[in-house]
């Protein structure tokens, strides 16, 4: 065996490895912790959830949670909600809210909820966002969320048109993620709220993938 053999040219392998690392790093999205674990029903639909969605999560007991991902939109929605329900938030609280994930507390308790750390938030006792006709907060969250997301979409679209650049944004959509054991009436209630606000007839029901039968 020749003495020079143990060294091997690894450059192509390293090239490939770093290429893949870069690819996965750029495509990966940060997963935010969800307040509830939801086991979605399965379907054969292989349509991937669009990007610009407001997500309403419904857990097994029918509690409602709301999430919209874009941080700047979140703060604008919070401002609108704060104005409508006469609750005040400091700038620090708004900043914290922007970085949060899905939440399910009434607006009156949202301040206390924001000021907790992640462990405290997970333990926070809540009955979800109220949706009864007297305090239809979920309806307002959905409504303001959709308005703000639409405004953002429009301004970005106009800007792209002005600069003659390609526009890749997606129109705002609504998605419902409910547990398979949830009574359908809770889902129906949320859909009726959305229908009443006349926002968007297409609603995405989040499911997990199942093999198509032959």
């Amino acid at each position, binding site marked *: 065996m020749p003495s020079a053999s143990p060294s091997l040219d690894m450059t192509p392998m390293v090239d490939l490895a770093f290429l893949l690392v870069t690819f996965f790093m750029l495509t990966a999205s940060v997963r935010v912790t969800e307040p509830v674990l939801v086991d979605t*029903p399965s379907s054969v639909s292989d*349509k*991937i959830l669009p990007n610009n969605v407001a997500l309403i999560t419904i857990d097994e007991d029918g509690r409602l949670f709301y999430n919209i991902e874009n941080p700047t939109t979140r703060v604008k929605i919070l401002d609108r909600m704060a104005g409508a329900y006469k609750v005040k938030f400091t700038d620090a609280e708004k900043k914290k809210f922007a970085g949060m994930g899905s939440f399910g507390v009434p607006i009156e308790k949202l301040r206390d909820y924001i000021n907790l750390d992640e462990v405290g938030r997970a333990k926070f006792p809540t009955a979800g966002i109220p949706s009864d006709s007297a305090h239809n907060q979920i309806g307002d969250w959905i409504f303001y969320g959709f308005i703000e997301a639409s405004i953002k979409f429009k301004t970005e679209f106009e800007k792209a048109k002005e600069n003659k650049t390609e526009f890749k944004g997606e129109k705002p959509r609504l998605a419902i993620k409910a547990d398979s054991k949830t009574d359908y009436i809770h889902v129906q209630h949320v859909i009726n709220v959305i229908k009443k606000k006349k926002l968007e007839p297409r609603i995405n029901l989040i499911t997990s993938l199942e093999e198509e039968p032959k």
Partner: protein
Amino acid sequence: MAEVNTGDSGGGHGKHQKKRAKKLSTRIDMTPMVDLAFLLLTFFVLTSTFNKSKTLEVLYPVDPTDTINKPPPIKEGITFLLTEDDKVFYYKGEFNLKGNAEGKPETVLTQTDYSKDGVRKILMDRNKDLRDAIAKLQEQLNKKEINDSIYKLKANEERALPKYVTVLIKTDDKASYKNVVDVIDDLRIAEIAKMAVVDITGPELALMKQSAANSKP
């Protein structure tokens, strides 16, 4: 391991030794870097792939408020009635109460289930015409007689034709979300595009309760 050979590591002064040292100097041990690269690669591969949500897009049109635009009642169709304990009933055509004015026979509910010979089979059989029509279009597409966009357009046109079956889904308070998604899913498999989830009426609810009480578990 990871040290860079700087050229005078040999410490020799002879001409022959110097030459050899220069030749070695271009090589770096890349093993730790490769280790790191693959570690990161594994991490990102494992965390990213399980993250994509799939979605079932359903159209929920806003109810027309004026009576003029109200859609006519559906005469040809299947209505599924969903209730607790994964029970599902269906009837075809219009709902007729016992002793109705037109003297039509009373509607009787038939029980079915969510297995592959249940709801799916009913829908597949009922929608055979449309599935055949779409299969024909698919064949044309495979033979390259029509292109992809024309195929999609024609298939959608075909699906919307009034002669094909319309399906209504109605639930009581206790039906689970999973069951509704199952029915919608079976509709997709059977290529039925015309469907709606609507509120149950009083007589239907009463009849379903009665049927559920008499049904097998």
